[in-house]
């Protein structure tokens, strides 16, 4: 459709300047024509370019974006305001989010620093995780669709190719053609799978690779054969382009780019976790490599990939729920053996039966434990001491298929430290003792477990210690009282 003139009124919206002339749509600033000028945030209107020459796909993806945008909420998507009648005058009005897209970082003459890429990666992974929790898979993540706010948080744009597990997929078809942007598209998308959240993990991997090396891992294939290469081929390791790159980061990026979705991070929260805890990343040969995968390996994989075909994917929300990040808060002192034992049992149960769940064991020590004067109590030494203690406790939990890590935090406010850690790492379940963390001394103020249970952004499991055997015989005399607390 032709450009709208500034000052035109459309369904109650006053058209402002055109801020983007795209191949698919034009974007204008808009205000309300009557009453307050906006709903509390600035607005834009996206109008598809539909002329006689434009394909039907353009308008379907516009419809898909409308479907999905109105169902999404949270800080990682633009807020939806209104939509025009698709038959009469199609448009979408949404929040204008100030910021820069990832393209800005790619256009710079110098590559961003490792720290900066890690920061961007964490922000992207958190935004994508929030989307997956709402049962939406983006499926067209690329630098132009990743907007970084001034506060560093990422907002995802353009849901024209996305898939909502609870809505009919208007882009689905029986032939299952590949839909997406060739450079960032996951292998399973090439064979027509729509709805696997790990496809978005792959796209994040491509963008991290791009940010770190300035190169696209699989180029920009124009043909179906070129697209299918990623079903069996590993990209050249990033360290070939940037030899000083830390191996742990290469490990993370290449795990995102695994051809088989099952070998990638099982959820974006797991990816963010590794990016935030480099010391916990298990570096394999893949992380160290500076040379690509051999021709023989590629040949064998090519044979396998020839049979790769469409399979339906489970609900994103359910899929990521099966690979939780479980955090267990372990007191560093004043805890009975029975309490520590019960905590370990509960943590093991919470990991579930499926592989892929991750366990983070956390101890919060008080600032008084460390000293700047006494060498044996220096921060490093104290942390090492408690870390060893924590590792010993967690050792029986180190099972194949689950990754376990230990973390010592230092804070005067134990509950807040646990809450911050859980929020920052998108923890799915917190396991802690119902009567730990100094319960006896905190009779008058909210206890740590209560505060965590009330304010946690996720499920909290409060563990009662199993009954100590030496007190069993006292029970009958005390009547039907419930088990003692520790």
């Amino acid at each position, binding site marked *: 459709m032709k450009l709208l003139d500034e000052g035109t009124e459309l369904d109650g919206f006053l058209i402002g300047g055109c801020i983007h002339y795209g191949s698919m749509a034009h974007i204008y600033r808009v205000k309300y024509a009557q009453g307050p000028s906006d709903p509390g945030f600035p607005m834009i209107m996206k109008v598809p370019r539909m002329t006689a020459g434009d394909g039907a796909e353009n308008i379907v993806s516009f*419809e898909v974006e409308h479907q999905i945008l109105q169902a999404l909420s949270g800080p990682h998507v633009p807020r939806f305001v209104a939509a025009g009648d698709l038959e009469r005058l199609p448009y979408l009005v949404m929040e204008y989010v100030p910021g820069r897209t990832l393209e800005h970082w790619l256009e710079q003459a110098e590559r961003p620093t490792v720290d900066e890429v890690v920061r961007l990666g964490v922000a992207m992974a958190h935004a994508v995780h929030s989307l997956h929790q709402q049962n939406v898979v983006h499926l067209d993540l690329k630098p132009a669709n990743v907007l970084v706010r001034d506060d560093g948080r990422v907002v995802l744009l353009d849901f024209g190719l996305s898939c909502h597990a*609870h809505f009919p997929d208007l*882009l*689905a*078809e*029986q032939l299952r053609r590949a839909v997406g942007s060739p450079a960032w598209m996951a292998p399973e998308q090439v064979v027509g799978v729509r709805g696997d959240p790990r496809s978005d993990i792959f796209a994040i991997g491509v963008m991290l690779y791009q940010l770190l090396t300035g190169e696209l891992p699989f180029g920009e294939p124009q043909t179906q054969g070129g697209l299918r290469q990623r079903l069996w081929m590993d990209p050249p390791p990033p360290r070939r382009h940037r030899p000083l790159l830390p191996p742990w980061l290469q490990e993370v990026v290449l795990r995102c780019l695994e051809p088989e979705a099952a070998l990638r991070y099982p959820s974006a929260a797991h990816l963010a976790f590794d990016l935030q805890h480099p010391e916990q990343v298990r570096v394999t040969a893949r992380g160290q490599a500076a040379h690509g995968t051999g021709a023989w390996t590629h040949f064998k994989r090519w044979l396998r990939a020839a049979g790769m075909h469409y399979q339906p994917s489970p609900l994103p929300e359910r899929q990521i729920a099966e690979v939780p990040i479980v955090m267990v808060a372990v007191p560093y002192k004043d805890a009975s053996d029975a309490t520590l034992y019960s905590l370990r049992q509960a943590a093991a149960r919470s990991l579930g039966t499926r592989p892929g769940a991750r366990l983070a064991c956390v101890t919060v020590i008080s600032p008084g434990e460390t000293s700047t004067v006494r060498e044996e109590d220096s921060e490093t030494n104290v942390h090492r001491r408690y870390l060893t203690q924590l590792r010993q406790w967690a050792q029986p939990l180190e099972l194949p298929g689950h990754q376990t890590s230990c973390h010592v935090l230092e804070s005067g406010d134990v509950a807040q430290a646990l809450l911050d850690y859980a929020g920052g790492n998108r923890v799915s379940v917190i396991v802690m003792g119902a009567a730990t963390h100094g319960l006896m001394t905190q009779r008058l103020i909210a206890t740590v477990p209560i505060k965590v249970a009330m304010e946690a952004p996720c499920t909290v499991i409060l563990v009662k210690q199993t009954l100590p055997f030496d007190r069993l015989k006292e029970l009958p005399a005390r009547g039907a009282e419930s088990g003692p607390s520790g």
Partner: protein
Amino acid sequence: MRLALLSDIHANLQALEACLAHARAQGADRLAFLGDLVGYGAHPGPVMQRIMALAAQGALVLKGNHDEMAAQPPAENRSMGESTALWTHDQLDEAQLAFLGGLPLTVQHDRVLLVHASADAPAQWRYVYDTPMAELSLRAASAVEGVRYVFGGHVHRQSLYYRGADGRLLSFAPTDGVAVPVSSHRHWLATIGSVGQPRDGNPKAMYALFDSARAQLTFHRVAYDHQAAAAAIRRAGLPDFFADRLELGR
């Protein structure tokens, strides 16, 4: 307009009342009963009384195969359904039988075509249980000027059919309580499930709510006292099978 779509009530008064209360709470301002008001269940009289009163207030009511059987019960019983048809017939008064006999097979309301079974041959009571059958029904309905939505019952199952990117019909299994966007420039066909005899392993009653202004269709599942409904069937001396299946949703 928020149109509540209720089908296959099958003389289940408890399920009907639960769905009506739910629809009212959801802001439904119009009701449509898509047939099979009676048959199988223990309360044909009270259900007919309720629906006829609602019809007098503007509810749309269609005829289903069981309604036809109850109005004119077959001479011989070839199926369990037919065996209860005569019993149902005997529970109804003249006015109720006349009402059932005079119900239409299809009703058009704005862009919506309502039918008990399949729009291509409503009197043949074909089951729309897959995409080829949905294609027949939708194609026949789309020939009617302005129709974009076909809502039906009969299969006791909740499904939504729509055209994919290549124009072929695809089926979609809806999630309870999620408002599905169904924009009016496309053609849609929905089987909205059964109020009074769910058969998908979940005993909760089924109905759907269509919001024409927002172009959204929401499939609902409503818990009701299915034990009371089953007990009434046993008390009435109807086959145990009809009571058992309410408890299992099978």
